[in-house]
């Protein structure tokens, strides 16, 4: 149903590549600066890994339910599509809630982005991902309206597909945040 060689999908794909490059710069900064704690809190002291695991599982599952939503779209099942996307939204919102709680907890402990270069790069990298998640959630709501109000013709399906692609890529980037920030950052 979706022609991935379609011009609009390809254009959006190229845009996603540029977004990945922005993340690459933020990752490079984090790696270079992760030891620059300025005698402040370190990763080991701050990170609460069980909630990081919870966030990871929430986002991974949301990527799965998003795929199920697209499956429903390809079968022209509007109601199932909306249900799966609502579930995806809830999982994504829960992820965001946990992340914001983590940020608030750090700030309360005095480990805000102002404390050291390490914390600046942590908040920026993870925060930028969180900002993308928020945009993805908003986009998801708009697409749910589209599914409800418009017929599932090719150009509608293409738009919903692009939103799903964006959402999958957010989990793709999170794999590396989980590994490099919370994993390697914690181990080193």
């Amino acid at each position, binding site marked *: 149903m979706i022609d991935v060689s379609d011009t609009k999908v390809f254009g959006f794909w190229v845009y996603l590549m540029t977004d990945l490059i922005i993340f690459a710069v933020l990752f490079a900064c984090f790696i270079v600066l992760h030891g*620059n704690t300025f005698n402040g809190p370190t990763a080991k002291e701050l990170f609460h890994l069980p909630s990081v695991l919870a966030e990871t599982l929430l986002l991974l599952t949301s990527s799965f339910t998003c795929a199920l939503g697209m499956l429903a779209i390809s079968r022209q099942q509007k109601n199932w599509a909306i249900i799966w996307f609502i579930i995806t939204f809830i999982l994504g919102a829960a992820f965001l809630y946990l992340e914001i709680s983590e940020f608030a907890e750090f700030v309360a402990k005095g480990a805000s982005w102002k404390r050291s270069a390490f914390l600046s790069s942590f908040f920026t990298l993870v925060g930028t991902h969180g900002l993308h998640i928020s945009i993805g959630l908003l986009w998801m709501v*708009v697409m749910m309206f*589209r599914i409800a109000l418009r017929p599932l013709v090719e150009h509608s399906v293409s738009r919903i597909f692009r939103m799903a692609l964006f959402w999958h890529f957010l989990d793709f980037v999170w794999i590396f945040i989980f590994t490099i920030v919370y994993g390697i950052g914690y181990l080193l």
Partner: protein
Amino acid sequence: MRDFFFGKLTWDAVPHVWYTIGGTVFIILVAFAIGIYLTLTRRWGWLWNEWLTSTDPKKIGTMYMIFASVMFFRGMLDAGMVWLQQSIAADSQGYLTADHFQQIFTSHGDIMVFFVTMSFFFGLMNWIVPLQIGARDLAFPFLNSLGFWLTVSGGLLINLFFVIGGNFANTGWLAIAPFSELEFNPSVGVDYLIWSLQLSGAGSLLAGINFLVTIIKKRAPGMTLMKMPLFTWNSLCAMVLIISAFPVLTATTLLLWLDRAFEMHFFTIGYAGNQMMYWNLIWMWGHPEVYILVIPAFGMFSEIVSTFSQKKTSGYVSMVWAAITITMLSFLVWLHHFFVMGAGPSVNSFFGIVTMLIAIPAGVQVFNWIFTMYKGKINLASPMYWFIGFLVLFIIGGMAGIFMASPPADFQVHNSLFLVAHFHTMIVGVALFGIFAGITFWFPKIFGFKLNERLDKQAFWFWFVGFFVAFMPLYLLGFMGAPRRIDHYDAATGWQPLYITASIGFCFILCGIATQVYLVIESIKQRKHHLDTTGDPWNGRTLEWATHSPPPFYNFAIVPPITSHEVFWDMKKKGWKREKTYEDIECFKNTGMGIYISIFAFLLGFGFVWQIIGLIILSSIGVIACIIRLSFDDEMEYVLCAEDVAKIEESYIRG
């Protein structure tokens, strides 16, 4: 509460020095003059419907060119002020304070790179790339309009400090950290730099994606990659660089702004920031950027040389590979901008060697151009003048570059006037001459009449001689130890005569610019004498010459079959005549959304600069609301049926 409405704005932001008052008055006068003209001639509607909301790449291209020309005057004003200051400031402070001088060369660099050269190139690409590949429009007509208006909003923001704020960044065009951090630069100048770059960077990125997808997906059937004209190939390579490099600029300037606005510590001196990382990241963007500026010029000259030598470009395949190689290598050399920062011999030699390697594909191109001319029927029209000037300057500037590619040699001339002379040779001699040549070459296609040849050649001589007189002294000064960016120096150094010579060269260049202004005015007045009635004034070789001059908004009524990278030459050899059977054409509507989104983006940028929370929230909502509104608009295309196409085509043939 105060923060919500006013942020950091105070009464100090009102203009109160001579240059901010002067700039404000000038901007207001020009705006009024335009407004009064439009009102008296009742052309507001025409302007809005025919031009501002247009999604036709030819119109957007023309708007880019006009915008770039306006910004060019601003950049040259800065240049003139620098030249004057440096000529008189031997053993004196000159007429500018140190801080003001620093603001001038900073804005000169940013304006010339972002708003002049890039805008000129996007303008020329908008005009010509769709025509060369047999397409009717770009892949994303709306994004084309949005990208243009975002660039304009960036241009507005970079000039806004005259009216509100009072000072621009004094940090150099790349806002080096930690000098650009709050500790040393608490005023909003650096923030204006950051956000105007973010806005225009977003516009450039959208245009880059657009052209990349257009060239890859919208070529006429039968036009394989190896049948694309060289200007299109070089544009493709430049677009690959844009999508790879501009995200780095976006991220890096964002980090600098986060340091300033949120007291983060990426590049600050305290709290374990790493200032060297800033230079690493910004040059990671900066080096591909300068190749973005020159690679399209190479493409333009390839077209010009083969057209005016009436010969196929020598070594088409090697030219394609040269362009691709330069593109790939340009992403591996950025450290040569900071050999002196102390990365050590292993790092420096790696980057030095790769930098020298770029000379090889550059040399391949130079030799191919010369081989193309060899035994060709050369017609020395004015584009060829610009080409020969370019060839001389490219070789000189290139050799200076190879000299600096060696770290030990670079240690001597880093940040001296030798470096300044080198990059101006490349930007003026390659990029700017390419733009001038391209404008003269393609002007009749876009506007239907040729530019005055004699005046264009006169302009060339002013520019060419002027450039030598203005910049050769700078090479010498660099070897003599003169650093860049100094606002005064001791007369005992003996530098002043050379600075004065450079200023004389600048006067020649000013004559060249004056000639070009006169050229445009005269050519418009005399246009009936230089009409291009055939669509092919230069005996061209590529597909753009197969349309009418100017082309109808849909470019081609029928797209001809593609045979080689010189389709039109092949068509002419076979005795081509315009077809009279027509088909329905899908077209894109005009839309004002690009302007509305850019206005909100401008307000958002302004809000970020002055940290006005209310404005930030409201304009973010504005941008998002526009985008959501746009996403529900499913009817942006309409069909022009074959009968209407026939009527338009007949009107061209009737004349």
